[in-house]
């Protein structure tokens, strides 16, 4: 017999991210949490946060800037902890969402097996990766989300390898929904979160999350950096339904890659070859366009 819980309260809940979070100025993840709160409306999620900046965001015990039930867990375990919570929700017949809020290290690297398994079991979990392309919490080491050329504290001469295509990996699980989120495209961002919240099963959202401390960028420019990343084609905005049907939400507009790169100290001394990078971005877009043409998402 499942646990009996009190009847839900209809009064509005406090903002998900209350004042006094410990996030750095210009942390895009803070904006992401604000918008997640807006998209949630009256729903009260349970947050599962693995080791990452967001585990420190709410401050130290006994205070917490998170207003919703939250479990801080170990690096590789988020999707499995969320599985446990989501199954109890099922037992109780509760509809509120179970949300993983995880960085790229816990998603692309150490937590990948856990993430993959939860997706394969199609657990009723919304997994949101705020991707700052480094291990931000430990001082900016490379992860497999770090793009080629980026200088990090463990790639002082720039990363040699390309960024892992986590969206393709997740799509290969044929999960109900996967999409990328841009903090420079607010309507699209809110629409996608609301769409995901309205679905059941495993849903994966990837949010590019500029980190001024790690990217050596101006804290005031975080949202602008996301806009440039989308505009130059480096961060495609798209959705994948059931891992099979694709929809592109915004196409590159001819903005030079360098407009994005030159604003970040991490690319300043060891910038990748523009020709190579342009060719790589073009190949990625050719692949994405072809997928969207052959396997289009229809409403």
């Amino acid at each position, binding site marked *: 017999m499942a646990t009996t819980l009190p009847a839900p309260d209809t009064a509005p809940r406090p903002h998900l991210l209350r004042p006094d979070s410990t996030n750095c100025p210009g942390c895009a993840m803070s904006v992401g949490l604000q918008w997640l709160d807006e998209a949630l409306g009256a729903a009260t999620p349970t947050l599962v946060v693995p080791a990452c900046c967001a585990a420190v965001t*709410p401050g130290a015990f006994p205070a*917490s800037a998170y207003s919703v039930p939250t479990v*801080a867990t170990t690096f590789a*375990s988020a999707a499995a902890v969320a*599985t*446990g*919570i989501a*199954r109890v929700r099922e037992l109780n017949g509760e509809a509120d969402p179970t949300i993983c809020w995880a960085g790229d290290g816990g998603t692309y690297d150490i937590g990948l097996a*856990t993430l993959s398994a939860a997706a394969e079991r199609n657990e009723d979990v919304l997994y949101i990766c705020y991707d700052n392309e480094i291990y931000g919490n430990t001082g900016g080491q490379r992860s497999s989300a770090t793009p080629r050329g980026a200088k990090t504290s463990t790639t002082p001469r720039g990363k040699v390898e390309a960024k892992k295509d986590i969206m393709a990996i997740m799509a290969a699980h044929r999960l109900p929904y996967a999409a990328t989120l841009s903090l420079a495209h607010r309507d699209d961002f809110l629409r996608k979160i609301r769409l995901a919240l309205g679905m059941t099963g495993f849903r994966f959202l990837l949010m590019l999350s500029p980190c001024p401390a790690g990217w050596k960028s101006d804290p005031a420019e975080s949202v602008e950096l996301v806009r440039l990343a989308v505009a130059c084609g480096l961060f495609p905005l798209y959705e994948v339904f059931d891992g099979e049907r694709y929809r592109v939400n915004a196409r590159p507009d001819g903005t030079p890659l360098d407009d994005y790169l030159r604003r970040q100290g991490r690319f300043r001394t060891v910038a990748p070859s523009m020709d190579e990078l342009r060719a790589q971005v073009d190949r990625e877009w050719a692949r994405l366009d072809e997928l969207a043409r052959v396997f289009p998402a229809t409403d």
Partner: protein
Amino acid sequence: MTTEQATILAVTGNEAVAEAMRQVNPDVVAAYPITPQTEIVQIYAQFVADGKVDTEFITAESEHSAMSAAIGSAAAGARTMTATSSQGFALMWELLFVAASYRLPIVMANVNRALSGPINIHCDHSDSMGGRDCGWIQLYGENHQEAYDNHVMAVRIAEHADVRLPVMTMIDGYVISGAIGPMESLTDAQVQEFVGPYRPIHPMLDSKHPVTVGPFDGLHGFYMEHKATQQQAMERASRVIDEIAAEYAELSGRRYGLIDAYRTEDAEVAIVVVGSTAGTTRMIVDKLRAKGVRAGCVRVRAFRPFPAAEYAEAIGHCKVVGVMDRSDSFGAQGGQVFLEVRSALYDCDPRPQVLPFIYGLGGRDIFPANIEQAFTVLRDAAKRKTKTTVERRYLNLREE
């Protein structure tokens, strides 16, 4: 299968554990198969498939995730169980500490098996002994009956308001888990009444009262106070384990203590042992007693919390005590049980000499003759006017 009257069954140790789980009918079971625990997971999956339980069954992709899912489920407010062995136990490692520090009353069956390397799938206690400091209550069973009984009692111990700690129950891999032995079960109704409904404290799904489970607690915070409260809960657990055992005895007629002392009252030499080897040890004690040797033995039942005073009471008067460890702590003065027992007897006056023995690693056979050899060492030491040497003595180790 439902059990409406107490029944004596011939079961494997794994079947005994699975039957206890079925009768408890937990909200969530999250598990991953590993030899020799696999049978528990398979049997339980069949119970779920056949509608014999109401459990949400999570087939995790690893023990790391099985324990993670158990943590999520227990934090959400559900009665939660899992099971593992050996490498699976080791893979759970970081989460074992998390489960205990979050004070989640998860119940886990650990079927004891050696740790790699070299790869070995047979019984020793390296897995759970290596996890003795993770904050879980540890109960070691001797036989099929105790595999069942401990698992039913574990639910009450874990959930007790004075404890709120996870509990692992151990049985010896293969020797108990795979071999068939007798088990008298309670009825389903008796078990349900005994465990009662689960009332979680601060469940995460109570969204009207949001809590953060396991938040950051750094240099100037309360980390150390959290650890002190875990220890306080462990101290209270000794009394709770005994009270629940007394209550269980009224129901089942089987009374378990924190330790299981045998013919120790006037013993001059005694052996301390864990798990299935206790039966063979008692047989040797009887044999020696018949020859006039004042021999006794103690079986370890609760290893965490460790009831030190009970050891002092039971064998503090002995001249020499031998501790047989089925796992080793390399570089230490002996195995994990040895270290505890010698420490427990340190304040006895006069103080018995305590000698470390290592046996049964990776399933190495332990014969009655090996236990007699150990007693011979103890009796020789008891006759000496000076202390004997305290190096590890291996039982049934291949000669060069």
